[in-house]
């Protein structure tokens, strides 16, 4: 191994040691379900704000968006705006209401006034589907990324990395529960913000803190001139691609507040006011972070030499930030370059660990609390039994994710993150919003919107160019779709289903509701609304 690889490996192992230590420490005063599922509801607004940032800012954001900006200029930036504005939906319509009316899962708020079993089954299904999609994308990314950052190409190392990341996340979740996971996310958020802020300052210093000069150099070096700073380089090629981006934009802005791993974070604060504060902190943090990625992306385009820039392009953009760190540290071969490269690589690694832990926890809690206890045991399982099941579920989900991620490496599954947002916006958000704002909403409406949104989003992607019909890239000879190039079942022209499936989710929720009568759901709306808006009767923090 070369010097920087030894350093990178050492920093990776420090991240592992630190997070494992935190998890063990957190597990020592974690006892009941409220501790295991909701961290005892004892995290302050600031702590939970950091943890939300840690849960949300994935490697796809950190490396992917800066990479997209480095390669496609302005169009990479378009992404991050949807990711940020989305937080206003969470702040205004979801966070406090959910904190006041639910307990542990997304399903709790619906089950408050509807038929328990069908609604919980639907919500748990959608929770697990969204989380597994997101998880798979992160795990496959982890294998590729660690191999890339360590500079190894062997399949064996990639598989080993996926296995190792999977084993770690199972450990965090089963041992540390929500407390351990939250602290891992807090540590990751601090590392990520500090690491990227450092590189941003170093990049800006090279241009005398003159943004215009940075942009000008980036445009020039990218070889694309002024178009690099204008929208359209990536999404503007045809009317279909433009509509495809609009479809993605809708899913990003409406999906965040329906992502189950984000929703359950709101339960970790003592009151709804703290939940609100935590979203405010998260908005500040996430906003700052996306401004950082703007500088990182354009900085990579401006400062990397031809060879490094070609390497970024070959990595699909993922290497933009790490190579930029190396460049501003003094370039390849220098000590400063090696240190900063290793640092950014370790930050990326911590990022992956924190996100996969959050996803595994979310789906395991939903399986134990919604499916096992409420559906199979009629709500009669003891708390200890439910927690035991959630630990087993975390292990099983982790293993499934590992087993799926290893063969999935051969496929281009980056679309799964966008699909997770589309499902969250089409299936979960309509149910959450109707439940809170519409007295008449009932079980059938909830089921139609959740299953309808879920099936239409996933179904449209199956018949989209992602799965079949794109054929072979004449330049690289690579198959551009998932299925073999000679099979073509595609008829839906867009890669992002949101523009159809989100309105459909809302429409089905409406139709399902007005086509059935459920007086008890309407009666209990009064109780739900009072509780949601005032916090009267909301779950209390655990006193230790």
């Amino acid at each position, binding site marked *: 191994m070369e010097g920087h690889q030894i350093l990178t490996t050492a920093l990776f192992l420090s991240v592992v040691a630190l997070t494992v230590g935190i998890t063990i420490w957190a597990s020592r005063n974690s006892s009941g379900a409220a501790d295991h599922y909701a961290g005892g509801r004892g995290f302050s607004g600031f702590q939970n704000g950091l943890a939300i940032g840690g849960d949300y800012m994935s490697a796809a954001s950190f490396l992917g968006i800066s990479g997209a900006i480095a390669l496609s200029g302005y169009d990479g930036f378009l992404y991050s705006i949807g990711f940020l504005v989305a937080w*206003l939906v969470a702040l205004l319509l979801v966070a406090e209401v959910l904190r006041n009316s639910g307990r542990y899962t997304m399903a709790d708020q619906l089950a408050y006034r509807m038929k328990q079993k069908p609604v919980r089954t639907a919500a748990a299904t959608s929770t697990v589907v969204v989380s597994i999609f997101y998880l798979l994308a992160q795990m496959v990314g982890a294998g590729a990324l660690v191999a890339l950052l360590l500079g190894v190409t062997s399949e064996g190392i990639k598989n080993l990395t996926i296995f190792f990341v999977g084993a770690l996340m199972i450990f965090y979740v089963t041992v540390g529960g929500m407390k351990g996971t939250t602290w891992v996310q807090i540590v990751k958020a601090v590392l990520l913000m500090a690491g990227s802020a450092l590189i941003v300052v170093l990049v800006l210093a090279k241009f005398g803190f003159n943004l215009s000069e940075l942009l000008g150099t980036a445009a020039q070096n990218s070889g694309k001139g002024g178009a690099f700073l204008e929208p359209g380089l990536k999404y503007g090629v045809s009317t279909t691609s433009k509509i495809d981006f609009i479809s993605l934009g809708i899913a990003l802005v409406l999906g965040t507040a329906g992502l189950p791993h984000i929703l359950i974070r709101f339960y970790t604060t003592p009151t709804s006011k703290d939940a609100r504060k935590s979203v405010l902190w998260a908005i500040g943090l996430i906003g700052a972070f996306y401004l950082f990625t703007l500088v990182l992306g354009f900085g990579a385009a401006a400062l990397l030499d031809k060879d490094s820039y070609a390497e970024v392009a070959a990595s699909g953009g993922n290497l933009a930030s790490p190579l930029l760190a190396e460049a501003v540290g003094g370039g390849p071969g220098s000590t400063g370059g090696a240190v900063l490269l290793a640092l950014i690589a370790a930050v990326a690694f911590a990022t992956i660990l924190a996100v996969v832990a959050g996803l595994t926890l979310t789906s395991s809690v939903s399986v134990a609390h919604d499916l096992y206890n409420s559906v199979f045991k009629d709500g009669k399982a003891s708390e200890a039994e439910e927690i035991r099941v959630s630990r087993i579920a975390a292990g099983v989900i982790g293993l499934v994710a590992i087993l799926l991620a290893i063969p999935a490496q051969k496929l281009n599954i980056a679309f799964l993150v966008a699909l997770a947002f589309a499902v969250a916006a089409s299936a979960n958000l309509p149910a959450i919003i109707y439940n809170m704002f519409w007295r008449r909403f009932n079980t059938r409406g909830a089921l139609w919107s959740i299953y309808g949104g879920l099936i239409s989003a996933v179904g449209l992607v199956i018949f989209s160019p992602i799965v079949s019909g794109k054929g072979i890239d004449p330049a690289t000879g690579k198959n551009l779709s998932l299925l073999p190039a000679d099979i073509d079942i595609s008829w839906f022209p867009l890669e992002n289903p949101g523009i159809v499936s989100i309105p459909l989710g809302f429409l089905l929720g409406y139709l399902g509701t007005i086509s059935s009568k459920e007086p008890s759901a309407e009666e209990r709306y009064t109780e739900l609304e009072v509780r949601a808006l005032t916090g009267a009767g909301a779950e209390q923090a655990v006193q230790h």
Partner: protein
Amino acid sequence: MTQDAHDQAARHDPVYDELSARPEFAELRSRYRRFVIPATAAFLAWYALYVLMSMFAHDFMSTKVAGNINVALVFGLLQFATTFLIAWLYSRYSNTNLDPLAKQLSDDYYESRER
């Protein structure tokens, strides 16, 4: 620990009907909706305008404002600014207009529990 969520669906607590009928609650609900519904409509429309213009108003978005900074970049950064602004306004609004009413009602709820 409160009752299991399972029992909650069958249980009905009349104190919620009482609270719901109070004029303070009607006021709280209307104040909450009066802020969040227009604010949500506004930021979604503002975001939609940004996305649509990025896709379909290429020439306007490419107009240079100062140096290499063009309208598209300014518009994008304005989305950040409005997000921060709406978040801050909502926080201020909740602190002064929503929280005191919510606290009064939930205090009454907990008092009725103790009786």
